[in-house]
């Protein structure tokens, strides 16, 4: 098992390096940099830019040096936990994003928990009541969840939440708690607001997971050993939970890996619509204004979360399923 973990960690390193190279390349693809856009914008509105300061910043962050040196500088900073400097906010990226990264993680993790809590019972119910009316209804609902663009669902839910529950529109907490230190009231306000983004972001993933669990469990329930268990008079619940469910769970866990990028993507767009103080809106504006350290560090953080998610799901799978563990051991 230890060998397996080490093996997986060793694979993660080149993956992260490759990801950072790709992100750096993408960020630097558009012609010019933040300063050229900035100067052009200021000149467009008839103002004069503070050229001395820009020159200083350009030198400080090595815009005059070759690309590979800039890359090394950025990655070196990342390793120290220094995410670089946001030019549009005129602050270190760490200061700009600190709370946002935390909130992004909170929203993502809550969404994943929501997905599991909802998908699990519904999936089991659909599979054990195949082709019943409630199964058809749930399937239809799941398909609708897959097909509705999340941002619109967000708008509609926001509207109704405001009309019927009086929850303030947009944001993750009541406006009065903004920029306040964390307190009990702030947490409660967060809880009251977080459910809309969680439902909206989680709907597509939940629907997909219900469908997959249902299909897997159905496959498993048709097997001989289940028939035998039933025939010898095992309690139906035990005949469901003891083995078939465990077998059907594998994809459930390996899904964490694919669920995380999906949740983060969903969070990015939904938070733009709902003006959540998470990373989405900031990433959008950073990409537009070519604020390269901000955008790059964001993307890097999101990809890092994903890689970690895949790693965790692989570990959980190996813990749960001896076949995977043994196979991995043999390969080395």
């Amino acid at each position, binding site marked *: 098992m230890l060998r397996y973990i080490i093996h997986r960690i060793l*694979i993660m390193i*080149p*993956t992260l390096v*490759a*990801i950072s190279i*790709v*992100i750096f390349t*993408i*960020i630097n*693809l*558009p*012609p010019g940099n933040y300063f050229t856009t900035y100067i052009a914008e200021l000149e467009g509105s008839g103002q004069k830019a503070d050229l001395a300061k820009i020159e200083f910043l350009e030198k400080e962050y090595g815009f005059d040096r070759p690309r590979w040196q800039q890359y090394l500088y950025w990655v070196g900073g990342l390793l120290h936990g220094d995410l670089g400097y946001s030019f549009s906010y005129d602050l270190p990226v760490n200061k700009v994003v600190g709370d946002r990264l935390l909130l992004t993680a909170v929203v993502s993790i809550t969404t994943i928990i929501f997905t599991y809590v909802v998908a699990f019972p519904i999936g089991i119910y659909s599979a054990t009541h195949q082709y019943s009316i409630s199964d058809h209804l749930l399937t239809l609902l799941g*398909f*609708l969840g*897959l*097909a*509705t*663009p*999340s*941002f*619109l669902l967000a*708008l*509609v839910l*926001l*509207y109704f939440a*405001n009309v019927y529950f009086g929850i303030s*529109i*947009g944001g993750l907490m009541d406006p009065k708690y903004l920029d306040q230190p964390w307190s009990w009231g702030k947490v409660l306000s967060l809880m009251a607001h977080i459910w809309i983004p969680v439902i909206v972001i989680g709907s597509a993933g939940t629907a997909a997971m219900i469908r997959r669990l249902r299909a897997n469990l159905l496959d498993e329930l048709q097997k001989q050993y289940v028939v035998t268990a039933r025939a010898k008079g095992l309690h139906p619940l035990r005949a469901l939970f003891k083995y078939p469910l465990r077998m059907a769970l594998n994809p459930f866990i390996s899904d964490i890996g*694919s669920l*995380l*990028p*999906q949740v*983060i*993507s*969903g969070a*990015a*767009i939904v938070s*733009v*619509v709902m003006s959540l103080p998470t990373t989405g809106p900031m*990433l*959008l504006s950073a*990409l*537009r204004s070519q604020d390269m350290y901000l*955008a790059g560090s*964001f*993307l890097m953080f*999101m*990809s890092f979360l*994903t*890689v970690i998610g*895949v790693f965790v799901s692989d570990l959980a799978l190996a813990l749960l399923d001896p076949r995977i563990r043994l196979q991995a051991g043999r390969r080395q």
Partner: protein
Amino acid sequence: MSDLTFVPGPEHSPAGDLAEPVPLPHYVSRAPYDPYAVERMTAAQERFYVASQWRMVWWKLCRHRVAVASGAILLAMYIGITICEFLAPYGMDTRNTDFIYAPPQPVHIFSHGHLVAPYVLGFDYRLDMKRLERIYTPDPEKRQPIRFFCRGDEYKFWGLFPGNLHLACPAHGGQLFLLGTDRLGRDLMSRMIYGARVSLTVGLVGVAVSLTLGIVIGGIAGYYGGWTDILIQRAMEVIQSFPHLPLWMALSAILPVSWSPLFVYFGITLILGMIDWTHLARAVRSKLLALREEDFCTAAVLMGARPVRIIGRHLLPSFSSHLIASATLMVPGMILGETALSFLGLGVRPPMTSWGVLLSDAQNINVVALYPWLMAPVATVIVAVLAFNFFGDGLRDAADPYH
């Protein structure tokens, strides 16, 4: 007597007289005995037996009623986008400045309890000066019968041939806003019909891109194995670790502002297709890994066929139906992706129109409260996505020989 055809009855008569058979107490067929009779098939069985793989897939698909219905809807949609100039009652950019944010006009076919030609009711317009709100009230006196196959707004069919024939037009001097108008007074219904052209083709072109990439790269990985395989797999893992939407956002932010809308459109489809190919490549790879051990593949290698021919001619056709089904299931993701990007203003740019561009007008919560009809394009998005999902599911079941 013949030994080969055993005809019971006459032979058993003691006289051996063939001309006058002695009638037996039970029925005996006089037809010559055919030892292969058991294996002979009826015409229907025969048809089934010699049917090609594609024909079997087609038959199975036809049994799947939801899939057939979805396929029909998709077919209708795709036929629709070839003639959207004709279907739309107004031009794409026709502005009705007197009718800004006009609500939808329902079609009436009953008047005073009688069935009449379909008509809509004209508006009485009033500006509420207190709330600065435009108030449109349907006026029962203003009956405006809809004209069919009529001359209306000028257009250029496919941007080439001028014309002005429409399926339905407003009455002379009247309006026909079946789904209301937007902030510039443009008919939403017409714009949705035009937007379908972009939204529905983005998925197809994107899937074509990822299908090509997936087959070529997955094929190389699966056929050669070894180091090539390991390298390609690692690369695919890297691509899969990116959250899709932020990467799409980053890539489409690269597209230069100076590009023409058509270029941007192709850029977006490329971007959508470039990320999603990894799933297909994985499927191709694992299938190829299994198939290349088969005897027919070894035979082809021994006959000196080149890898390209072996992959393209012998291996890919073995699971092409499965591939097409997976590709169909990828289209909805791309349609939703385009919608999301355009909604954020990073996708297709006006003056080109897509469902996402139309929905970006509904970005504001005021819209939900005041002009809910602007969210209508979401209905077509849902229908298209659902239809593709059901059709792809049916196709996948039909393509599975063990199902």
